[in-house]
Structures are given as C-alpha cells and as structure tokens.
C-alpha cells in the first residue's frame, strides 16, 4: 500500500508555519512555563497542534516469560475550527494510534496502526482528564487508576496502571526544549513508574495471559517542536532495579551533531527528579541492526553513562526486530522496543529494563514534529 496517509500528514506537519497557511489560524506555541494542573492536563490541549499519550511497559507472566507493549494515542490538529462544528465528521483533528506487542520468548513482534477523525464517537481525547480513545482502543483514568485496552487481529491487551511515584515534569518545569528557536519546545511530563496488572494476548498465542510489571506514560503537547535541520531523535526510558528511572533524549541533526537542547531526567527512588544536560550524559553505540523491511540502520546496543549519578549501563533490545512502519497512520518509520540491561547505579550493581525509541533512521523527520 502506498503511504497515502503519510503524504497527508507530511503535508500537514511540514506546512506550519508557512507563508501560505491562513493567517487567522495559529496554534498555541510552547513558550514560557505552563501552569500545570492535574487531572486537567492529563486531558487534551486542542489549542496545540500535536499531542500524544505514550504508554510503554515491560511485563512478565506467571511462568516468567517477558513481554513488552506500546500503546500510543496521537492527536494531530488539522485546523483550529471545524467548518461545521455540529457535524462530528467535520474535520478538526486527526487521531492516529499505534499498538505493538513484543513476546521475548518467541521473539515475535507485532504492531497495528489506526487513524480516524472524531466522527460520531470514533476517536477523541477528552479535555479535563485522561480519556482518549481510538476505534476501540482506549486509555482512561478513574481516580488514580488508568485502564488501557487495545485489540487488533489476534493480539490485545487489557491493563490497569497505578502510579507508584508522583509525575515528573521534564526540562524547565515541564517546558522541554527541542531547539534553539522560539516555540521549538514541547510541554512534557511523564508517569515513570506505573504498577501494571492485567492480561495480554500475543498474536498466535491464543488465550489471554495474566501479566504484571511496570509501565511508563509520556505526555507531550506542542505545535512545532522539530526544526528542519534535525533528522530524528533517540529516546530512552529506563527503570533501574534500585528504584531509579532515567529518561534521556537526543535530537540528532543532519550534520551528525547532537542538538544542544537535548536533555534527560533522573528520577530517584523517592520520586525526586533531577534534570540532566547533554554534557552530563554519555551514550555509546556498541552495535547496529539493519532493518530488512525499511533498510534503516539502527543502533542495536548501548552503553549509557551518567557519571554524576554513578550510572553506567549496557542495554540491548529484547528482540532486534521492533520496527514500526506506519504508512497507514502517521507515515513515520521508527523503532520502538523493549530493552533490558545491567550495570551499576550509585556504585551498586543493578539490572534495568525499559523502552527505547529511535526515529529518523529510515527517512528524516526534520520539521515534522
């Protein structure tokens, strides 16, 4: 299938701000501090153009088999006002969504993608609290409990997520810079340690399996974060066995350098968080993996060091093939997968697991997000 939605989204994403865009339509920019309020900010921010709810998690069943999952809801604004607000089909936002499951035992990785407009209750994101849905996939917060569910073909999940730590605001009180220019930033926070329980169904696995583990929710909203000279990013979310969590992201520029605005956050076992600057983080690629499907050549093993925190880890994917080619929704080809590793933290040996996302290795993302 040809990447038609991709063509649409590339058009949508790359054309703002541009001279021919109508003057009256302006999306709110991520500039200055945001006055956070929860649960309100778990909900949608339709005044911004791009927004996502990004769930990833590492799970185990009773027999000790390991699984990874990703369930992502996007909202992509097309125009600030629908031409006919009374008609639910009248277009304002598009809602792509991605869903993937990794089965470490069999080495299987499957993913699915969807895209819908709001329509008569087909997809949407409520304001005021966490409640997003997309053609039968959903994430909803009730009290402190988040329920997520998705199903496609033979695979599915139904999980309950409960935060064990307070949420973490990244960057400068949640304003996370992605470039030097005005507005080249997003508002960004995470729930880094969500106790997770429920069932998953792996493709070809048959009956649902009861699982437990930990999940991570990344929330971000912005209007034009990436600049044209940026090629993509690498993002790490790692939970250490000593109770610490580490989030790192590196924006790679087309000239091979790393954007100076890249950064990270270290979350201590007691929930306190600490911002990390590019210079405080060391990442070394130890191996690469080439995708047969997209031809993209991705890093395949890393050594990550944060000397100030005494962290020195070597991590690798649970399964090499965890690439998503999403021509039917966002049009982006990226690698997003479960990883694990071992090393030291504050001088003591630790194990770790988490998720890594790598974009821009099979086609540039510059200027899109």
């Amino acid at each position, binding site marked *: *299938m*040809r990447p*038609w*939605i991709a*063509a*649409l989204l590339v*058009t*949508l994403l790359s*054309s703002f701000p*541009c001279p*021919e*865009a*109508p003057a009256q339509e302006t999306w709110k920019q991520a500039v200055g501090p945001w006055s956070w309020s929860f649960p309100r900010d778990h909900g949608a921010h339709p005044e911004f153009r791009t927004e996502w709810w990004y769930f990833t998690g590492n799970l185990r069943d009773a027999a000790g088999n390991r699984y990874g999952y990703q369930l992502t809801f996007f909202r992509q604004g*097309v*125009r600030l006002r629908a*031409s*006919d607000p*009374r*008609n*639910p*089909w*009248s*277009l304002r936002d*598009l809602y792509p969504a991605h869903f993937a499951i990794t089965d470490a035992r069999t080495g299987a990785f499957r993913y699915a993608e969807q*895209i*819908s*407009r709001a*329509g*008569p*209750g*087909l997809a949407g994101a409520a304001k005021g609290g966490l409640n997003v849905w997309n*053609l*039968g996939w959903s994430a909803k917060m009730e009290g402190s409990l988040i329920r997520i569910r998705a*199903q496609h*073909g033979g695979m599915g999940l139904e999980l309950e997520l409960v935060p064990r730590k307070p949420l973490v605001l990244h960057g400068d009180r949640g304003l996370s810079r992605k470039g030097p220019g005005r507005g080249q930033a997003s508002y960004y926070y995470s729930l880094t340690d969500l106790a997770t329980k429920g069932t998953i169904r792996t493709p070809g696995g048959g009956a649902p399996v009861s699982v437990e583990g930990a999940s991570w929710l990344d929330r971000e909203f912005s209007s034009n974060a990436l600049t044209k000279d940026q090629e993509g990013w690498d993002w790490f979310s790692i939970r250490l066995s000593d109770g610490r969590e580490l989030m790192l992201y590196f924006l790679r520029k087309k000239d091979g350098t790393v954007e100076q605005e890249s950064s990270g956050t270290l979350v201590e076992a007691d929930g306190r968080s600490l911002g990390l600057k590019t210079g405080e983080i060391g990442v070394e690629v130890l191996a690469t993996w080439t995708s047969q499907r997209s031809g993209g050549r991705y890093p395949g093993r890393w050594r990550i060091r944060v000397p100030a925190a005494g962290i020195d880890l070597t991590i690798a994917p649970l399964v090499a093939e965890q690439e998503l080619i999403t021509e*039917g929704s966002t049009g982006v080809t990226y690698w997003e997968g479960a990883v694990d590793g071992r090393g030291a933290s504050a001088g003591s040996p630790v194990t770790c697991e988490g998720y890594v996302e790598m974009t821009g290795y099979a086609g540039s993302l510059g200027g899109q997000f």
Partner: protein
Amino acid sequence: MRTVTRSFLRHLYRRRSLSLLQLLGIACGVAAVVGMALSARSALSSFSQAVEFLRGKSTHTLERLAGPMDESILRQLAADPAVVSFAPVLERRLKLGNGDLVRLLGIDPFLDRAIRPELSRVPFERRTSRSFEDSIAFLTDERAVLIEAGLARTLGLATGGSVPTLKGPLRVVGSFANPSGEPLILMDIAHTQKLLGLGGRIDHVDLILDDEGGFASRWREGYRIQSKRQRQDTFGAMVGAFRLNLEALSLMALFVSVFLIYNTAMFAVVSRRRDAGILRSLGASRAEVAGAFLTEIALFGTLGGLAGSLFGFLLSRALTEVIGGTISSLYFFLRTAPMPWSWWVPAAGVAVGLGASLLGSLYPLVELTRTDPAVTLRGRSGSRGNRRRAWIVALAGAGCLIASILLLAFFSKRVYAAFIGVFGFLFGLSLLTGVIMVLAEPLLGRVLASFGGLPGRIAAGNIIRNLGRTGVAVAAFMMALSLSIGLGSMIGSFRQSLIWWMGTQLRGDLYVSNASDMEVPEGFYEEIRGIPGVGGVDTYRKAQVTYRGRAIHVAAIQAGVLQRFARFGWVEGGDGHWEAVKRGDVIVSESFARSFGASPGGVVTLEGAKGPVDLRIEGVFYDYSTEHGLVMMDRATYIALYGDRTINSIAVFIDPSEPRKRRILDDIRARAAARGLPVSTREQFHRNILEVFDSTFAVTRSMRIMAIVIAFFGITGALLTLFIERRRDFGILRALGFSTGQVARMTLLEALGMGIVSFALSSGVGTVLAVLLIRVINLRSFNWTVFYFPDWQPYAVTAATALAASLGAALYPIWKVHRTYPQMQIREE
C-alpha cells in the same frame, strides 16, 4: 482427390458473387450469435465488477432492514471484537446538470483505507504543486468531490473545475480511475450528509469480520448482515430474469443463424449437383467428391466464422452499451465496458460457422453421394421426390410440435423448459413449411398469375418444384419474420399494458423526485400538504428487503390518499381494499403473489426492526414496477415496522374542483426547486417511464433487425441458386419466345412469391409466438401478466420488410437475367 478439390475451389472463384453471398450469409449468422452472446456477457460482467469494486475488500455489509441508519452505531462497531475494519457509506444517485444520474459515494477516507484502499487514498495522493489548503480540500471543502476519470473526460472537467448538479455545483479536486468503468463521484462523508440533508445518517457499513457467527448473534435484531457471497447472490437474482432474457435472445440469434448457415451450406451442395455428377462420370470416386465438398464447406465455415466473429465483436461493442443502458435504468447505474478482444472469439465464431455448415451440408451430401451420377447430371432431383420428402419432414415437424406442446403444458413453470418449448414449437412449425407450400401451390399460382400472368404461374411452379431449396429459404425467412412479428406484438402489448398500469397507479398532478434512492425531506411533505387547494399528497417510499431469502421490495404509500385519487388495477377485488390497508393490512403485487404463492387472506411475515411481523394480505394488484415482488402498505404501518421515515418521492393531487390548480402547481414547483428537488408532471413522469421501457427493449429490437438481415441473405442466396440452376430452363424459355422482361418479371415474382408465402406463414406463427412470449415466457420470467393487445403495426412493418427484402433479394438475379438471358441458348439438348 486433389484434382477434384482444386476444381471445386476454382469453381468458387468463378462464381464469386454466389461465393461471396454464401460467405456473407455465414458471417452474418455468426456475427449475430457472437455479438449477442458477447455483449450479454460483457454487460453482466461489468455489472458484477461494478458491484465488486464498490464493495472493495469487505467481507460483509451491515444495513438497516429498510432505510438509512443512525451513525451512532459506528461506535458500537468499533468496540465489537469481531470487527477487523469497518467503513460507513452513503450511496445515492445524484442528478447532474445534464440530466444524467451518477452514483455518489460518501465515504470516510480514513476508515475506508482497509476496505477500499484504491479509492480511499485518492484524496491524499501527492501532488507537488498543491498548496496546503488544496491538499486537504477533500476533507475541508464542503463542495469538494473526486470524480471518476471517464466521467471527467465526458464532462470535460479537470481539477479545479465545477460539476453542475441539481444540488448545486460541486468542485472537482481530483479524479481517479475506476477499473469497473462506472461513473462515480466521491465525496467526504461529512459533506455528503450535508449535501443530501442526511445529517447523522449513513446507508450501510462495509465490514471486514473475523467471526461472522459471533457478530451475527450480536447484530441480529433490526439489521441485515450480508456476506460477500449473499450479496453476489442478491445481485445475481436481481438481474436473473434479465440475464435469462439475454440468453434467450442469444439463443434466438443462434437459432436463426444456424438456420441461415445451414441454408447456405445446403445451397453450396445442391447447386453443385451437376458438377458433382460430371466429376463422378469422369471417374472421381464418391469419397473424392464428398471430400471436395467437405473441403469447400469447411473453407466457407472457417472463413465465414472468422469474418463473422470480427463483425460480431464490433457489433457487441454497440450492443453492450444498449444492454448497459437497460441495466442502468432498471437495476443499477452502470457504464459497461465491452469485452476485450480474445482469441476465443474467433475460435467460437469458427466453431459456430463450421458446425452449422457441416450440419447443413450433411443431408444433401449423403443424398448426393448415394445418387446415381446420371441423375445428378440432370441438375436437380425431381419434384415428386421433393413432395414426398416435404411430407416426411412435416411429420418430423409435427412430432417436434407435439413434444414442445407437451413440454409447455407440463413443465411450463420452469423458465428454461418454457424457452426450449417455445424454440421447439418454432422449429416444428418451420419443418411444416414445405408441406404447406406444396398445399398452397394452386393458391400461390393464382396470386402470382394475377400479378404477372404466365410468368407468375411459372414462378409459382418453380418455387414448388425446387422445394429443396426454396423450402428452407422460406422457412428461414418465415422464422425471421415470425420473430419480428412475435417480438413486435409482445413489446407493443407490454407497452399498452404499461400505459394502462400507469393510468391506474400514477395519477398525481405533480411528482416531486422520482428515483428510488433520492429523498424528499419530511418537512417538505408537510409543507406541501398544508397548501390550500391540495387535495392529497401521497408519500412513496420503496425499500429492498429480504423475504424467504430473496430480495423483494416494500413500498409505503398513503392509503387514504390513494383511495381517493388512484384507481389500482386489482387482480382480485376492487378499491374497497384500501380500508383494510389503512388499518394495517398489505396489498401485494401480482409478481409477489405468483413468486411466493400468496393470495388474499394469507399472511406475509416480514422481518421488522423489532423482530418478525405478520401482515395480512388484503389484495393483489397488477404491477410492472418490479419483477421481484412488491408488498405495499400504509406509511404508518411501514414506519411501525422499520422505523424508517424516508420518503423517496411525493405525488401531489389537486382537488378536482380547485380553480387555481395551475397557480398551486407553480407554487409547489418553485418550493421544490428551492430545495434542489426535481419535479415532473404526470405526463413527464409517464413519458420517462416509457422511455425506460423503450430503452429496455432496444436489444430486442436490434435482434429483430438482425433476424431480418439474416433472412435477407437467405432469400437472396436461394434466388441466386435457383437462377444459376435454371439456365437450362432459361434456354427453353428463350426458345419459346419469352422476352428478357418476362423472364425478369418471373424472377421477381419468384422472389415475391417466396416473400408472400413467408409472410403469410409468419403472420400465423408470429401471432402464436407473441402469445407464447406473453403468456408463457413473460409470466414465467417476470411473474406478471401482460395483456395481449392486438395491433396491426408489427404485421404491417413485417409485411413491408418482407416485401423489401424479397424485392431486394431479386435485384441481383434480375440484373444477371438482363445481362445473360439475351445470349442464352439451349446448349445441352
């Protein structure tokens, strides 16, 4: 053997006019069969292709039992575990500015991508020169449409252009290729809803399911779920009767064509008896002569078959359009794509040409090889033998007739049996031709003598003496003329019946919208009803539903209004039925009653939105609007049954005593125009229906013409053969002092005589055929009664055709007479 064969082939060249005629005869016959069969096939395959294309990759379709449904069900579908993909569709016809009706498909390109990937990606195809607004115009511009490339060409539209429609102009933001060739307009579902005033509603949902059983258990009540297979069956059944008739027409073409080819091949053999005799006397063996004949016939059959298949292929391109037009106006909007060229076409053509030629030559050849060469040298067999043979053939014909009558009497409920019966009947009658001609000789002699004196009498004698040739030619011509009379009378009677029926049911002064997939807003109906002077407004709603596994139609009307203004034609009973209909009973069409064996007092059980409902049948009425059966009920009954408030059209009745009738009608017209609703007067409405009717029978009419053309060649061939064979007679005539004019007149009268006999026979046979077509075929295929209206017109047309054809056929022989007769001598004696 080679020498003999070569001598035969040289002979073909020497008599090239006759050879050419024979070749043309075979080619015409083959062309008729190939043309008819190919076009029927391509029209029907275009039809199923178009249906398949529209349904895409969906495995199932979900719809309300009748009418559109609320779009809120989509949310439930999204949550249903059996649903892999779903796509809502609004599917209507849209009237373009030029009056054409085109299918309008309202889709959501996002949900549609799994079901119709080719269509759904069209809105987003990369175009470098587009601005941001242009690239999303399909989704954001309320008037944006994509149009099928063929339609764009027809309308001369390019991207950025505007399509005028009854609902206002639409802006073309792109075009797309539709492999099925159907003209199509694609619009975003949001904008389609607005354009059609159908906010919040969709017509059906195309689904990809992975658990049909589970899904069906959850969606049983109030919905119709059709699998791909069932859908194909439904469409198949929809055009079933039509297909059968096309097949019958193809068979008819085959029948007449085989007759002609047979005729031609037989002439080829008979006209060469003398040559064969000479060759045999010179020492050629039977096998050699027979082999030479077979070579010649095979050559003719092959060449004629090839040429015919080429003609037929060209013919099919014209006919396909005609048949497509019929399917469009009756069932499903369609642009037919003619069949692409395939080597099967000439293969089939040669098979028909060769097969029929060999069949035709078989009997004369056997006879020829058996006969003493001395006898064959005389040129032709004696008339006494002819007469005896005519009786034998007639006996076979009588047997065939009896068998056909038995078939019609006992198996007439089966359409195919009925068709075979009718063909057998015709064939049997054609076998009687020889005997009838023998018996009619004195009469014919007198008739021709009254035209041309002695030459006329001789002409009559010639016809009968050469029965071996003239009999078959007359039979073939008679058959073609009978088809012309039979089909003509049937069509005429049907047309009269239709006019009568329109007069009973369609009596409104004004009709607003009249296509079954258009809609009249309920508010408009209320508005019109409230206008002073309007005596009544009938709301018409027709929906397709399933009854006992078959597709039928349900119509909702205002019983009170029709009671006052309409005069239905009742199969049983009278206008008293309306009281019961107002109370909730239903009336059914004759086709329904016959298809399902229903009768007044019986019960029809329809699956309603809240489960099955028993409805009492109050009456049966004549109806030609659908052959699949129609159950008619009051609008209140219908709404209670299906919860569907759609109105397809309304009929306005003005009080007969109202003096301001014209002004009121003008007022309604203006109000309808303001809403983009088409309006027609009763006369226009009736005219439209008749136009559809006439286009429906366009194929049948072209079949009539084809039969005549084929017969023309038959007669010409017969005359030419007679002329060639009778050179010796001409010598005697010349010796007796006959002038060129007299001989020419004789030739003309021979042709005329054959024409007269053929026409006289065909009047009888054609009338019988008409009655069979009406009383047996129509009744069996469509389950409706067509009343036989005797009409002189088909007879007059056919008589004129017979006259023209026989005179035309005589032209060449007469020219030959003028050229060669003056030099003729009795050379042989």
